[in-house]
């Protein structure tokens, strides 16, 4: 799941996969704006077949929080 999230982030933000690590966040990725954030959520929801709540969407602003929220959801 870790690699899948990074791959998704790399495609959505049009950033080299190697540039995305465990510390990546909205602060470190240049292309991560509110529009791209909606695309990111749409892709995650489609790939993992889940729906996020409003609060979750607002919290998912870093690689680590995406991972935590996704793990919670899927368990």
């Amino acid at each position, binding site marked *: 799941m870790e690699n899948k999230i990074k791959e*998704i982030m790399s*495609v*959505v933000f*049009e950033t080299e996969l190697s540039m995305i690590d465990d510390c990546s966040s909205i602060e470190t990725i240049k292309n991560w704006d*509110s*529009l791209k954030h*909606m*695309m990111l959520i*749409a*892709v995650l929801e*489609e*790939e993992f077949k889940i729906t996020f709540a*409003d609060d979750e*969407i607002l919290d998912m602003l870093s690689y680590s929080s995406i991972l935590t929220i996704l793990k919670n959801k899927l368990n």
Partner: protein
Amino acid sequence: MMHLKYLDILKKNIGLRKTVRGDIFKVAVLSNIICHQINEMIEFSLRSHGVNASVTQCNYDNIIQEVEKYAHFDAVIIFWEASNVTDGLYYRINLLNEHDVEELTDKTIGEINYVIDSLKNTPLVIFNKFSSTIFNYHFQKENNFDIFCNSINHHLKNNISTNIKIINLENILSDISIKAAVDMRYFYSSKALYTIEFYKHYVEHITPILLSTVGKTKKALIFDCDNTLWKGILGEEEFDGIKMSANDKDGLPYHEVQNLALALSKKGVIVGLCSKNNSEDVEQVLLHHRDMVLSEKDITIKKVNWLDKATNLKEIANELNIGTDSIVYVDDSDFETNFIKSMMPEITVIKVPEKKHEYPSLIRNAFKYFYSSGETKEDYNKAEMYRHEYLRAKEKNSFSSIEEYLQSLNLNLSVYMNDLSITQRMAQLTQKTNQFNLTTKRYTETQIKNLITSNHHLILAINAKDRFGDSGITALSIIHLSKETAEIDTFLMSCRILGRNIEFKFFDLIIEQIKKLEIPQIKASYIKTIKNQQVEYFYENIGFSITNRTGNAKHYVLEIDNYITKNIDYIETN
């Protein structure tokens, strides 16, 4: 595309960005809601058809402010969402009185008129019908929001020009359900209304319209026979054992499919057969089976033999003078459909579904591939003309020389000069002609009108007929005139009339007109595309000299006095 996940669309689009080349097809999306998710989908959809698309969005809710900036684009898509015409319109409007609703309607119509007028020279504008359904489907009675949307739609229907295509969003909403099409989470937080699922269907819906402006429309619908046009296998069943009757529950889906094919053929789509059968057996069914809806004359071309289907489909494309990418092929066999998909991925393949009740709706869905912007008389007669073409090709074999054959045709050309009554057909010719087209410049009806009324253009069109039939208006030249030079901007001929030396006769006529205007010199260009190789040396062959080359273009000049008239005596003109 509807079956791809969003992630795959994004990934594939990045890949196609590197491989698809050619002129950039500029698309702008103007909207009053957030709909940026659509950009990559449109790019992907067009790029996968070889069109080098680039999509730009206006700033949120800036349709009116920014429209002029995008007027020179190849296509503009307007997402004018009724519910957000003003903030919270869909619930606020029900608190307004009749007079205020009318005022708001008039104001919105004024804005729409301004936008439409600003885009009058844009080749294609896609405009969504206003819809209240998402917010009003619960109510038994019509309310102000419904009335508002209906008034706007009524205005749109009566006041649009030919470059504007109206899309009915409710068709997509009914197809996938409002629940799947709308995501209220983002509507309240970010003014984004529609889901990825909705946009996939929307883009699929409008892609044929966008493609039609660059001449990429499907032209032929080719059927296998057994278990495709009828139920059962000819040769195994008795003649009456195959089923395609409206009075038989097994035959009914096939009866409907044949009716749909007949409707397409009346719209100018070529309907043909490509099947592995004994050709006499199929011939007998076409001529004598009482349940056949399609008759011999509706079927333009037949390849009924035991050769492989890829070879036959290639032959069909050759004989009809169309690209294989213009074919939609229907077959019930997994083997055949997969074979064609792998050998000729440019062909759209439809497999007859296992559940026969789903078959007619698959064919109805295929109607969109044959999208044509306006239906002209030529469209209506096209299937008939292609059939004549095929008969002519057959007859060719029985003459000892091509000249002898051409002489026997009684070819006759009528000339139209700067004629405003045929602008729609002339625009269509520029948009659809790819092979015999020296510069492949595309024009809209409005642009053609403007050229004619400009007074420094000579626009000649040719209607060609012969003893087999009337091919309609099938050749066009646009010539820019100045005192010293006549410059040929466009010279094209529909592939339906190729191989009859009509181009030479047409050129004689052009020279005759230019001489009358006492212009001493004529200039011309050939701009290379993937499809127009056959005319690469046209100007060299009729006596022009190359002056220079730029990129993929050659530029020519010819002193009028040096032109040698071809005087083809077997083509008459009037």
